[in-house]
């Protein structure tokens, strides 16, 4: 048998299939079809956790996703561990391992419960008031202590080994919730031929019908009708049934996030299956059939294990065949609890008394309860309960017509069921930014004006009678299909034989006559918020519900106040004596229930987190032992260490080789754009600061692009291949930015220009061969190109062949040495690279990486966009004023350069820095000041933008942007550092071969 509290028959579980699982290390037996909650209750276990703040013993309250208390950690090992799972939603399987949270050393004896003794000091906002002094102690002492004492669950310490997938999907009608309303809507919508998705967070579809024992639909039992309806839906090719799928978020334009749980309920799941799947559904129309949540009544000591929602107890009895106790007391403000009492009694639970808040309850359900021999106490409230780890008695009080409460009796019980009526689930409607309206008669916020294309049906819009619900669902489903454009289905009316439970209820804290400062009536179980906390917040001046919520944290736990929000609102309304709709309502936000990070990440983790771009030479560099760095998405060789070399040694060697002989560098990552058309030169003139009209085909120019705001955006050399064709290079990281900017101007500002832009970054491999011997290396390899000084001067480009493949050969230098950049079709890149390396072997050709490239360019004072510039640097600031075509009437950014602030003399300007001690290498980003002894905050004149050890010069060099820097050249400034100031001398920002003699060879 699967537990002492399992009824011998009844329910939808399979008693022939026992399932063993463990909770807090103890082994239990449930049966197939159980949730962890139903299986524990079947074993008589109500105590399942300790509360957030006071470590109060807590039990199972609900039977669904609204559960505030029964949060458990699940997972046999640390990699598969998931905290804060609702026991009411966990399907058990053979070998399931679960544990309670927030207790030590054990659930029954928890040291943290000492917090109870300090309850008077732990009221709402206590940490703001108590832990004020000294200020530094908050971060070091108080916060870590509080975080350890409070909180729920622990994060798993190991990486998640599970796989998660994501899928986009489209449908005509998405129906959310497969209870009676949702099933009726899906039947009606799919009958029109519309493509319908029907999702439900539960494993089994049917919603409230799964626990309905008496009502008959179309002459069938609820269970039979449900089975027939689902079979009918499953048979339709245009219907997709999605159980175990929570619609957790509504995003603009009917885009919904659905999380499907695929393997969490399986023992030994197929490892090929993902754990969860994120459905990103674009639905033309949405039908919300999200039902309603039962609302607890709030009274003193209402949080003991064994105190549950009446409807939840009915679900455990009817659907799971579980008796949640032996002797029950019911505390209610509505008829549905009578229905629950009758079902529980017929399942075998003794009902000791029904305390009804209403003065004169009547009607068919009350009559039936009385006829069944139940004691109904009218105008009666619960004034308190006893029992440490499980309720053992209830104190009742008589509610007088004047609102006074007088103690009446104490009743022994092990189960107290409460019901304050039902709250429509408007979470998703609210997320869709629909406007809610308050219905006085129903005491509920209902969907009002829609923003998105959706409609609500059934209990989520305040319709509770089963027949009306089915017919409302039908109307909603066919209405949605019609709105999509399908011909409406014939209206169908369902006949239900069953009695409505009406819509009575109560919101707020029930009268209890106790001293409010001594009693503890819990409003929000998950965040441990009491009646007193809310009243204290109001006494302290908080009026808006948004403020009360944040101050007391009511409704801010992982359940987002599913069971508590309305009662908190009711209490504020009662206390302020202000109508409830005037108190307002807090906003619902995604996700509806906690959703794993994994499903949002999907496959975007590890190597798949970001694309990796590799050049054709990448594998060669790997084989040579290169160390790589990331530059935007590219992997670039940083340096090529020989055995025993560190970066410094490798870079010194690479620099020397390039300056003295020849180096080879992979420049493939440079952005490349082909600009073609009759107006290509005109576009170049308008985009770049430079003048292009005079550049002849076969020549190259260094170009600068500004933003319209006048600041340097990108740079690079540009070759004119033909009168109507330019080969642009950009920085590695700026390629797409430049192309987008040029496209923008071409498409929107100058659509009349005849010019076409094509990204050719991936088309060319670029092999940079630099150094005094570079010509000697390349000469034997090229065909049809004369590399001589006379025929191919610095800053020229030739087309021809190298190693038999077509090339655009640039004579250009970012090192200050004689140099060439060999562009070949990317597919030939590796072969040509290896051929050049082989040809260069005799000359000592040395591969170098980005670090050496940087040192060599800094020695020459060449800037790097993004290093010497930061979006506030003009061409003049960084010494590029010479690139501006003076005769040009306009180019992007030109007008901004004429603004007074852009021409001010004290702007930060690029200078070179030489440390007085040549061995000291400055830190990039360090500040430059005049007097290091001035008081803090110092007047900062500028900062170091680049700093390297120059092997060529055998000393450190640096570039810096310094206020009025050019007028300070020759003077000394200081770079204050933690170890003391470093004296620097300002020099021209070029350290090597200032005349450029080495280029002209």
């Amino acid at each position, binding site marked *: 048998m699967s537990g002492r509290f399992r009824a011998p028959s009844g329910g939808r579980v399979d008693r022939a299939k026992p399932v063993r699982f463990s909770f807090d290390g103890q082994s239990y037996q449930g049966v197939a079809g159980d949730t962890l909650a139903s299986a524990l209750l079947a074993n008589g276990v109500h105590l399942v956790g300790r509360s957030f703040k006071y470590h109060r013993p807590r039990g199972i309250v609900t039977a669904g996703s609204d559960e505030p208390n029964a949060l458990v950690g699940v997972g046999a090992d640390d990699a598969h561990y998931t905290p804060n799972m609702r026991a009411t939603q966990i399907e058990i399987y053979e070998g399931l391992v679960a544990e309670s949270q927030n207790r030590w050393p054990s659930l029954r004896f928890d040291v943290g419960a000492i917090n109870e003794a300090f309850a008077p000091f732990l009221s709402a906002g206590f940490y703001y008031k108590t832990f004020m002094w000294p200020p530094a102690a908050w971060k070091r002492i108080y916060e870590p202590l509080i975080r350890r004492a409070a909180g729920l669950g622990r994060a798993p310490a190991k990486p998640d080994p599970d796989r998660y997938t994501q899928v*986009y999907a489209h449908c005509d009608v998405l129906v959310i919730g497969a209870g009676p309303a949702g099933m009726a809507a899906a039947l009606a919508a799919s009958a029109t031929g519309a493509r319908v998705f029907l999702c439900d967070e539960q494993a089994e579809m049917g919603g409230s019908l799964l626990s309905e024992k008496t009502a008959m639909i179309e002459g069938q039992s609820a269970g039979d009708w449900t089975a027939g309806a689902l079979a009918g839906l499953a048979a339709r090719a245009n219907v997709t049934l999605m159980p175990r799928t929570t619609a957790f978020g509504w*995003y*603009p*334009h*009917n*885009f919904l996030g659905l999380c499907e749980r695929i393997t969490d309920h399986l023992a030994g799941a197929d490892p090929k299956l993902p754990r969860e799947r994120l459905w*990103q559904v*674009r639905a033309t129309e949405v039908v919300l059939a999200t039902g309603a949540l039962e609302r607890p009544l709030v009274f003193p000591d209402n949080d003991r294990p064994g105190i549950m929602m009446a409807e939840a107890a009915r679900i455990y009895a009817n659907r799971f065949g579980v008796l949640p106790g032996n002797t029950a007391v019911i505390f209610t403000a509505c008829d549905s609890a009578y229905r629950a009492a009758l079902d529980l009694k017929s399942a075998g639970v003794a009902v000791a008394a029904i305390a009804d808040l209403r003065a004169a309850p009547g009607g068919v359900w009350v009559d039936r309860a009385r006829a069944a021999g139940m004691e109904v106490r009218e105008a009666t409230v619960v004034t308190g309960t006893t029992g440490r780890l499980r309720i053992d008695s209830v104190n009742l009080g008589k509610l007088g017509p004047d609102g006074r409460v007088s103690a009446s009796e104490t009743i022994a019980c092990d189960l107290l069921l409460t019901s304050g009526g039902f709250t429509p689930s408007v979470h998703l409607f609210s997320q869709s*930014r629909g406007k809610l309206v308050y219905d006085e008669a129903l005491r509920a916020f209902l969907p009002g004006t829609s*923003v998105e294309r959706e409609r609500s049906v059934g209990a989520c819009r305040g319709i509770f009678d089963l027949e009306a619900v089915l017919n409302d669902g039908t109307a909603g489903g066919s209405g949605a299909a019609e709105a999509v454009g399908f011909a409406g289905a014939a209206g169908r009316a369902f006949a239900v034989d069953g009695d409505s439970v009406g819509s009575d209820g109560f919101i707020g804290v029930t009268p209890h006559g106790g001293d409010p400062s001594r009693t503890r009536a819990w409003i929000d179980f998950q965040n441990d918020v009491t009646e007193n906390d809310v009243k204290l917040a109001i006494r302290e001046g908080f009026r808006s519900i948004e403020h009360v919520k944040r101050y007391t944290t009511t409704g801010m736990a992982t359940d987002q106040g599913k069971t508590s929000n309305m009662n908190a609102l009711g209490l504020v309304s009662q206390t302020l004596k202000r109508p409830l709709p005037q108190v307002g309502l807090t906003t619902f936000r995604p996700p509806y229930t906690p959703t794993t990070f994994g499903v949002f990440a999907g496959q975007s983790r590890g190597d798949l987190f970001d694309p990796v771009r590799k050049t054709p030479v990448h594998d060669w560099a790997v084989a040579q032992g290169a160390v790589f760095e990331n530059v935007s998405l590219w992997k670039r060789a940083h340096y090529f260490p020989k055995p025993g070399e560190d970066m410094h040694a490798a870079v010194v060697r690479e620099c020397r080789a390039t300056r003295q002989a020849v180096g080879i560098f992979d420049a493939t990552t440079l952005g490349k754009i082909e600009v073609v058309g009759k107006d290509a030169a005109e576009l170049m003139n308008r985009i770049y600061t430079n003048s292009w009209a005079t550049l002849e085909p076969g020549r190259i120019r260094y170009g600068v692009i500004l933003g*319209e*705001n006048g600041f340097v955006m990108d740079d690079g050399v540009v070759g004119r291949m033909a009168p109507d064709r330019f080969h642009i290079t950009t920085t590695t990281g700026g390629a797409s930015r430049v192309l*987008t900017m040029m*496209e*923008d101007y071409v*498409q*929107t*500002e100058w*659509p009349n220009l005849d010019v076409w832009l094509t990204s050719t970054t991936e088309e060319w491999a670029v092999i940079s061969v630099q150094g005094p011997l570079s010509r000697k290396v390349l000469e034997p390899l090229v065909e049809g190109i004369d590399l001589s000084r006379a025929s191919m001067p610095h800053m020229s480009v030739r087309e021809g062949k190298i190693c038999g493949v077509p090339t655009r050969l640039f004579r250009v230098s970012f090192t200050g040495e004689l140099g060439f950049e060999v562009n070949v079709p990317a597919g030939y890149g590796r072969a040509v690279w290896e051929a050049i390396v082989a040809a260069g072997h005799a000359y000592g050709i040395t591969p170098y990486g980005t670090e050496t490239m940087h040192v060599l360019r800094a020695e020459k004072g060449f800037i790097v966009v993004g290093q010497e510039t930061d979006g506030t640097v003009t061409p003049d600031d960084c010494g590029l004023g010479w690139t501006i075509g003076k005769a040009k*009437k*306009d180019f992007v950014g*030109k*007008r*901004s350069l*004429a*603004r*007074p602030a852009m021409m001010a003399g004290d702007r930060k300007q690029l200078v070179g820095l030489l440390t007085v001690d040549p061995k000291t290498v400055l830190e990039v980003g360090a500040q430059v000041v005049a007097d290091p002894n001035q008081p803090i905050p110092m007047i900062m004149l500028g900062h170091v933008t680049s700093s390297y050890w120059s092997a060529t010069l055998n000393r450190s060099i640096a570039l810096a942007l310094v206020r009025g820097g050019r007028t300070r050249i020759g003077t000394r400034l200081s770079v204050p550092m933690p170890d003391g100031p470093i004296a620097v001398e300002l020099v021209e920002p070029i350290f090597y071969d200032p005349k450029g003699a080495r280029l002209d060879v």
Partner: protein
Amino acid sequence: MLLIPCPHCGPRAELEFSYGGEAHIARPVDPASIDDDSWVTFLYERSNPRGVHAERWRHLHGCGRFFNVLRDTVSDTIAASYPAGQPRPALSPDGKGTKR
């Protein structure tokens, strides 16, 4: 995720697009003739309305073209989309579509 109607390709998911800021801010034909204040207005000042906003989008992972959209910044409702260079369409009184 918005569903954006590209005037050239039809409705597509937002992740195919990149945002391009406020629409109908034409670059002055002769910037040199503009005084500093007007130039700063052109560069930096934007309307940032609560309500219907004319804005540029580019169908980056589609046709690659820039176009304009009228989007309500409160509800995200898109009332119109039209090719770059066309004037902003007038909305019908209910604000839901264009007056044709």
